[in-house]
């Protein structure tokens, strides 16, 4: 039923407007559906059906199906080593996806994440070469991430520049600074216990040690986004900045802090990257932003802001990661993998739309067959 209402909202026509793609995800997870004024007989069932059809749920389901199929049919997939590879290689994307989701929900975007990670790695290598202790370097690098995020955030909130443009600028600038800092060097001799932390697994399991901090971050982000006033405000800011401002929400501060969070986590990722691959170079994590964005988009986060769930984003990221892993194992070439990624992205926006249209057609048929009960929504 929410579906058919969409037909009339004219704002949904232009492709660039708040869109249908993720429209069904807009009622946040778990909102109790049955209403006080409800006289709709099967409200609960429909609400459940609608929830099940939400794109983020679908992506989650797809991920589960993919994993199950791979366990049974793909050689070498299910063993601990491969799973740890899978998780380890997806981890940098999954890390940045957390703050990126929140930033995108608030209506902005940060393309400079890969460069920030690269810069953090480069600075880390440079300072390490100069003999500073790693325990000092890592906090410094994370601080650097804070600064990078601040620069993005201030340019966007204070000057009112579009974040897409600003972060394309800093995408180049941060990478350039990394190049100036580290030049052609590549630093590989980080202390062994740190390298081990970044690549070892937890006991005998397939879970990389580094996944633990990520899980902590995930929980924090999920709670903040979906269960706190801050999260509520983020959705409001993303859906209508002006209305949020009139509701007393500190829009600029909100956005600024999301940029800072993104910068910080990106720097953290940069540090992890350098340790995980045991190599700090200025071009570390090049192009990471596209992977993050592809995953987040696949998870149903709307780039116009105001819509999406963290679970969807994480599922999207891991779906892409797992798919790549499986395709490599079954010897699908890199080119074909690229095509599959693209097709998946297109489907991710087309499928909900097609499903909705089908649902609407069905509803119309039903409506013409049996006229609905005359009961009107009670007044108040």
């Amino acid at each position, binding site marked *: 039923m*929410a579906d058919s209402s969409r037909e009339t*909202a004219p704002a949904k026509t232009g492709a660039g407007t708040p869109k249908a793609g993720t429209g069904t995800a807009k009622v946040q997870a778990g*909102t*109790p559906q049955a209403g006080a004024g409800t*006289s709709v007989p099967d409200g609960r069932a429909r609400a459940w059906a609608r929830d099940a059809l939400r794109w983020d749920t679908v992506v989650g389901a797809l991920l589960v199906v993919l994993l199950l199929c791979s366990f049974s049919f793909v050689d070498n997939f299910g063993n601990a080593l491969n799973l740890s590879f899978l998780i380890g290689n997806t981890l940098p994307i999954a890390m940045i996806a957390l703050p990126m989701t929140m930033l995108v929900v608030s209506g902005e975007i940060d393309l400079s994440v890969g460069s920030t990670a690269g810069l953090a790695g480069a600075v880390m290598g440079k300072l390490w070469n100069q003999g500073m202790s790693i325990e000092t370097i890592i906090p410094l690098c994370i601080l650097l991430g804070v600064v990078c995020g601040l620069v993005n955030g201030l340019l966007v909130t204070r000057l009112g520049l579009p974040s897409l443009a600003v972060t394309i600028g800093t995408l180049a600038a941060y990478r350039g600074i990394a190049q100036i800092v580290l030049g052609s060097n590549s630093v590989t001799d980080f202390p062994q216990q740190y390298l081990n932390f970044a690549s070892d697994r937890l006991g005998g399991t397939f879970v990389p040690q580094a996944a633990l901090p990520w899980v902590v971050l995930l929980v924090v982000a999920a709670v903040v986004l979906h269960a*706190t006033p801050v999260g509520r405000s983020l959705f*409001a800011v993303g859906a*209508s900045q*002006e209305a949020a401002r009139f509701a007393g929400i500190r829009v600029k501060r909100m956005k600024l802090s999301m940029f800072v969070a993104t910068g910080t986590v990106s720097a953290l990722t940069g540090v992890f990257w350098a340790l995980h691959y045991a190599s700090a170079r200025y071009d570390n994590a090049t192009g990471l932003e596209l992977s993050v964005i592809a995953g987040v988009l696949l998870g149903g986060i709307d780039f116009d802001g105001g819509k999406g769930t963290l679970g969807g984003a994480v599922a999207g990221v891991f779906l892409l990661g797992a798919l790549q892993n499986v395709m490599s194992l079954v010897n699908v070439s890199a080119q074909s993998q690229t095509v599959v990624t693209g097709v998946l992205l297109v489907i991710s926006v087309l499928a909900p739309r097609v499903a909705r249209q089908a649902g609407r057609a069905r509803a119309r048929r039903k409506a013409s067959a049996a006229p609905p009960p005359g009961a*009107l929504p009670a007044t108040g």
Partner: protein
Amino acid sequence: MTDPEPERTPVLALEGVSKSFGAVRALRDVSLQLYAGEAHALAGENGAGKSTLIKALAGVHRPDSGTVLLDGAPVVFHGPADARDAGVAVIYQEPTLFPDLSVAENIFVGRQPRRSFGRVDHRAVKEATAALFARLGVDLDPEQPARGLSIADQQLVEIAKALSFDARVLIMDEPTAALTGSEVARLFGVVRALREGGAAVLFISHRLEEVFALCQRVTTLRDGGLIASEPVDGLTEDDLVRRMVGRDLDELYPKQDAEVGDVALSVRRLTREGVFTDVSFDVHRGEIVGLAGLVGAGRSEVARAVFGVDRWDAGEVHLDGRPLKPGAPSLAMAAGLALVPEDRRAQGLVMDMSIERNINLTGLRTTARAGLMDRGAERSRAVDWAVRLQVKYARLADLVGTLSGGNQQKVVLAKWLATGPRVLIVDEPTRGIDVGTKAEVHRLLSQLAADGLAVLMISSDLPEILGMADRVLVMHEGRLTAEIAREDATEESVMAAATGRGRSAA
């Protein structure tokens, strides 16, 4: 119920039209005939289905069943363009302008006058616009971008656009809701001329006196169903209200006398360059102060500045004796100030969020427990206020954008009243609200004032100001020109100050 005049075919008609949105049946088997040379009013409460009916006529919605008849023959409009080509011009309830285009281009989009090789004649576009504005008595620059126009100016542009069609059928959904008397008078002059020239007019307004002033026939809807379609002659306002609401009208301006207490809001020499200058006034507890003025006088701007959404350049604002920081709505809210903004779609509501979320947007801190949202508290806060303001909704989880215009306005009120403010600024609080509910809103405001709330009420509806305000402030050209006590406030005295003539003592 209806008695179609056999000798004439309606220019445009609906026959047995129904339209549902999910479980909401917005129109049920409604018929309507528009005749050339006749102005037809459409009356009904908020959510009765008026706008939906108009959209069915205009090809925006495809009816679930029933037909649209053009000159007696059934037609199917596949989109607004089809209706337009058939000579139907529509002013929708919410202005839909292109913010980046100039006012002139807004009016002529898709049908600009052309020169050789099909090129657009920019000059002719501009001149035609200027001529239209002259006819309407509107003072706008045709080349000005539409971005930043006040709601009233936007509405005027929409009117100019509709007039520019020289349409056979002119449909207007609450065109006057944001206008003051003088613009309305101008508009009616033009519409009468069109009607006499043979156009059919369909007009919606919640200001019943306008219905009586302009229209010959009136059709009333209730809950999506047709109640009556009859000549206006011989009807009284009370009759009409009874048809709409199904009962007798409560007193429209139930102003209670309240004890006037201490100064709650004090504004001193407030100035925002180029917008308003040297504005000073006080609002006391228990008092409703009306702020009147012509469209564009800068009333909304003062309210926005006081609340902190805009910065002010000079002056100060005190709330309960404590100074407010400029440009900080969150602090103003914390201090007990609430602002019901004039543009509900852009400022008042997040259209893509549910009713519940919208109402709770102002109470995120109060409904949270230990930093986490308390779903139960959120829900009961929303239900409580939605019920008190008689919002008509299917489920609280529905998008607020699916509500009718008047019900959206109620949600905005609910959202702010729920904060339990000490000073309430309402900017056009009853714009687009039906008479029955208007009385409710007035009673509520009056009650709140009686309980010690200080209310500043901005309104372009002069009777509302006169009926509700203890004191009337009048603005003209960004300055306060008069302060009139309730006893002395009359249409004449207020209009005199609003047009800048009688600079009576402040």
